[in-house]
């Protein structure tokens, strides 16, 4: 009952957008314009304008505390819950303003997020992946099974877990948990995938699996990844944006930014003169 009411009211502001969750035809373009962000009186982002093209991987790099994660969390409005956090300027998803034109909860089905630490729900592997589709629709049992298999195959986890689908997702290894979290996010067919240092808690083999996945996912999603690891940015991304002290210093196609940085600060960071 409640859920139906919720869905009705939630889809209202997004009229014209996809009213129900259908498989994404592809990624959506994310555009940030003049974003200033404040935590109370402290300004954390200064006039950030950045285009994140559809179906490409954009890497956000920069030293700790430079604002790249904060910026990422603006895109799916995860900062809304933080008291005293507000921003000016606009962030749009295929031209729709995420703060005013799209409902908060609907936005998050279009913009999925993967976190630094794998955080599967305390549920079975199957239920973890099935969670989103169940929550946002009434899929048949067979459709659900297919979705779960498709998503787990997509992240290369199916063969490892197909006999243990009823076991708890928390019993998997760290790398498997992270791929499970990606599968869980994919199950609602988001247009955009936000990844906040998705491999920093993983071993090298799992890291390389997740990196391969990022490039692969860009074929039908827009992938935006925050990373500390510059090699990772060069391996997986098409575009790279360098943040420093809350400002977007430079953005360019990845190969260009790494081989011919235009700004002195970018060059210093890339060559390890400060971090």
């Amino acid at each position, binding site marked *: 009952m409640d859920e139906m009411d*919720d869905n009705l009211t939630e889809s209202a502001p997004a009229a014209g957008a996809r009213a129900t969750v259908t498989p994404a035809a592809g990624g959506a373009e994310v555009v940030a314009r003049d974003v200033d962000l404040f935590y109370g009186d402290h300004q954390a982002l200064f006039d950030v304008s950045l285009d994140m093209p559809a179906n490409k991987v954009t890497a956000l790099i920069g030293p700790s505390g430079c604002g790249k994660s904060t910026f990422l969390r603006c895109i*799916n409005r*995860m900062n809304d*819950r933080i*008291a005293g956090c507000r921003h000016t300027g606009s962030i749009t998803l295929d031209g729709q303003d995420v703060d005013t034109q799209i409902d908060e*909860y*609907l*936005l*998050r*089905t279009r913009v*999925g*997020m993967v*976190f630094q*630490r794998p*955080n*599967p*729900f*305390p*549920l*079975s592997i199957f239920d973890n992946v099935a*969670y*989103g589709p169940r*929550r*946002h629709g009434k899929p048949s049992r067979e459709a659900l099974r297919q979705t779960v298999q498709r998503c787990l195959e997509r992240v290369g986890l199916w063969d490892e877990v197909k006999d243990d689908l*009823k*076991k*708890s997702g*928390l*019993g998997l290894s760290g790398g498997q948990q992270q791929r499970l*979290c990606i599968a*869980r*996010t994919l199950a*609602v067919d988001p247009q955009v995938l936000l990844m906040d240092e998705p491999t920093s808690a993983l071993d090298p083999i799992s890291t390389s699996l997740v990196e391969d996945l990022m490039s692969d996912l860009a074929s039908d999603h827009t992938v935006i990844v925050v990373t500390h690891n510059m090699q990772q940015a060069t391996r997986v991304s098409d575009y790279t944006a360098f943040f420093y002290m809350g400002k977007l210093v430079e953005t360019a196609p990845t190969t260009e930014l790494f081989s011919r940085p235009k700004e*002195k600060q970018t060059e*210093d960071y890339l060559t390890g*003169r*400060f971090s």
Partner: protein
Amino acid sequence: MTRSDKAATNAADAAPRAGAQTGATRAASAMDADTAASMARRARRSDHVATGVLAVLVGVVCLLTVAMVVYILASGGTKMLDWSFLTSNPSDGGIGPEIFNSFYLLFLTLLISLPLSLGAAIFLTQYAPSGPVTTCIKTIIEVLSSLPSIVVGLFGFLVFVIKFGWQFSIIAGACALTMFNLPIMVRVIQQALEAVPRGQRDAGLAMGLTRWETTIHVLIPSAIPAIVTGVILSAGRVFGEAAALIYTAGQSAPAIDFTNFDITSASCPWNVFRPAETLAVHIWKLNSESVVTDAAAISAGTAAFLVACILVFNILARIIGRALEKKVTAA
């Protein structure tokens, strides 16, 4: 000077300084080798002494507690294992109705206090904005948890028994015990919810779940092992409570008849408006005003049974908590 220039000069400065420093440290350590060795010896000795003192203190405390439990169980053990003692009426020197009353009262108390404390804990951890009001409420709950149980009992007497006109009854006792139990349960559940990693909450929100859905589907399942353990342990406390019940559930245990389903009758076990003496109250009554000849033996047997029950609660809490934990983390 640009940043990189400065870094370079700093590095150049630092190199010889670092070299000099290690040289100096090495010289100093060679000179003071004996001192260092004797200091290490002394540190090890004081470590041994501290370990010894702590072991003795813990040993004494353990010995005292174990001795108490063993004494209570031993002095009433034979009586406790007597089936007719456990089933017969107080008029025949038994504690049958008291056992039933204790469990029934515990069940009713949990029925009232669990939803209340779960709701309160969820509100306090998830919804209440941090501020003076919330802090004040949390303090009040803490104060309430250290309220003397006799005060709770007399308050219950005035409000439930007199004002509401419920007389000495199970429901009055259950309400008094709820007041007694609520603060502890709220704290236990609050801590369990707060211990759920922040990442889990973020995962729920990032999936497009509302705060309520995140709480119900993500936080509570994660916290359930700790919640269950806490609830069973608090049940042990409630089970052994006497002072809060003397003036609420009353001190008489009318004979109950399990074939009687007329819930208005005083002998119907499920009637919540009948007076119901519990095990702990029975012990108190036997020792303060009993005229029965073998009061001491009955009291010892009752105490042994009570302690055995609470022991079982604790063991159950551990087993169930661990099993749930295992189920949640890895099946």
